């Protein structure tokens, strides 16, 4: 019992305390040395939120758009290769699998600055398409691994059964494989979304300031003296994924109930 208590104490101190500090700081603009706990609370950060609601909303919307775009594109890029890696053996498979994980391992700057040159030539620098493409390159390995594991978790028999009953390849994918892959897909999508939504530098490099982003919006505020505003806006990074998580969880629950699986 002592062990459990001390582990929780460590976990709370390490991981929860910073969030509590952000929460307190968000509602006290005058919190300063040597107060360990804010002496006065105020709503200055909320006033800022009300004043700049439109800019904040736009940057959040833009970030969500390109992050969802990245999830969709990485799914499109990896769904066929994932099945191939999970189901078949072919010459050079191990080498290829290792090579395709490289973009998540090699520092992104090393290829992104060269890629910027290509994007300029292709006319997709400073566009949302370019941002989605570069973010997909650094994040697809997570989707690939999740989907490959998903395909490995169940055999080929379900698809074979559907095929024998006369289903088309598209129908097999939508009606048989995707529902079975859903847990793996959600796991991959969560990581891809978080990677895309968190990224600051690549959006700034490829988006060139014309694609608004939430991380780009709050960056100057983090370095300013507006501590309470910065704290409140930082909490959004935590709140947004949690909200998404609950919405998706509910949606799946309701979908399963409709099909009588709940």
């Amino acid at each position, binding site marked *: 019992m002592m*062990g*459990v208590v001390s*582990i*929780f104490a460590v*976990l*709370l101190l*390490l*991981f*929860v305390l*910073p969030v509590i*500090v*952000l929460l307190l700081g968000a509602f006290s603009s005058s919190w300063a*040395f*040597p107060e*360990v706990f804010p002496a006065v609370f105020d709503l200055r950060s909320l006033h800022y939120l009300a004043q700049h609601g439109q800019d904040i909303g736009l940057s959040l919307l833009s970030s969500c758009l390109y992050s969802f775009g990245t999830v969709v594109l990485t799914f*499109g*890029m*990896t769904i*066929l*290769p994932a*099945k*191939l890696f999970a189901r*078949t053996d072919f010459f050079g498979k191990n080498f290829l699998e290792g090579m*395709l994980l*490289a*973009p998540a*391992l*090699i*520092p*992104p*700057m*090393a*290829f*992104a*600055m*060269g*890629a910027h*040159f*290509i994007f300029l030539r292709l006319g997709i620098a400073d566009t949302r398409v370019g941002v989605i*493409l570069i973010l*997909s*390159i650094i994040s*697809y390995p997570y989707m*690939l691994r999740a989907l490959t594991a998903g395909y490995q978790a169940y055999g080929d028999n379900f698809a074979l059964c559907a095929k024998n009953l006369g289903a088309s390849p598209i129908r097999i994918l939508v009606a048989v494989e995707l529902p079975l892959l859903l847990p793996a897909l959600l796991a991959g999508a969560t990581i891809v979304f*978080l990677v895309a*939504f*968190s*990224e*600051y*530098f690549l959006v700034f490099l490829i988006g060139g300031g014309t694609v608004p982003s939430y*991380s780009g919006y709050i*960056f100057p505020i*983090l*370095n300013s003296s507006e501590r309470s505003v910065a*704290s409140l806006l*930082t909490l959004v*990074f*935590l709140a947004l*994924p*949690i909200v998404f998580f609950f919405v998706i969880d509910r949606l799946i629950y309701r979908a399963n109930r409709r099909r009588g699986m709940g």
Partner: protein
Amino acid sequence: MRPSEPLLRLLPLLLPFSLVFGCGLVITLLQSFGFLMFSYTYDDLFFAYRELFADSWFLRSAAFSLYVAAASSGLSIAIGTALAYALWKMPERYRNFAIVYKIPLVLPHIAVGFLAVIFLAKTGILASIAFHLGLIDSFEGFPDLLYTSAGIDLISAYIYKETPFVMVMVYAMLVRFDRRQIDTARMLGAGRLRIFYTLILPFILPAINTTFIILFIFTFGGFDLPFVLGDSYPGMLSIRIYEYFFQKDLALRPVAMAMLSLIFVFSLFFIGMYLRLSASLARGVRKL
């Protein structure tokens, strides 16, 4: 399946991979030698590399990046492994509450950098706590933890961000460990340390090795966190690259590309060396 079919199915992935990642790397390399540099031409193929080694700033920055990467990855591995092991030993009904450790996984690097400033500044939370404990009389007595060549701010921010990642990786490995082995070892009289070092550690070592490689290279070439924490001397390589790419004359861009090329070559070299080293170490360990 026809022989061409695997290639066809890989195409949706191989096409963007080659175009953005492959060609991106090639252009970085070419520009480091002065090719494709818009209207600029260079007489000396190694102009950028000579520029790098002409002065000591590059080697200092590289050494600083190595130090920050090694210290933060090493400490994250140590703390994360200890916490994952503690979590795994806990009774099952408490484990769900421990999900709070995933908070830093969700927070972006720039947010973690902001937290580091709040906590470590001379007038920050830690300084306030030290004041109330009577350790310092005023904020001037608090040590400089931000923007120094000791890199305390960078290292602690990376540890906060990376420890949960280590926990996830090590815990996933521990779940596959047969707990009955521990009971057997205990019956045979093994102590807690002995159990950890001879049973648990060899089992989770592959996960630790992979995680270390990922963290080390990521920290070594990371940009967001050093950028939000501001400049310091000698500073991380990524910040030097940023300066050469954006802030200096376009004619000097090959210098940025040369640093990136060296980082890329170093990453490959590091992965190779580390895998070879860990393989030779694993041969020395007696298999059960």
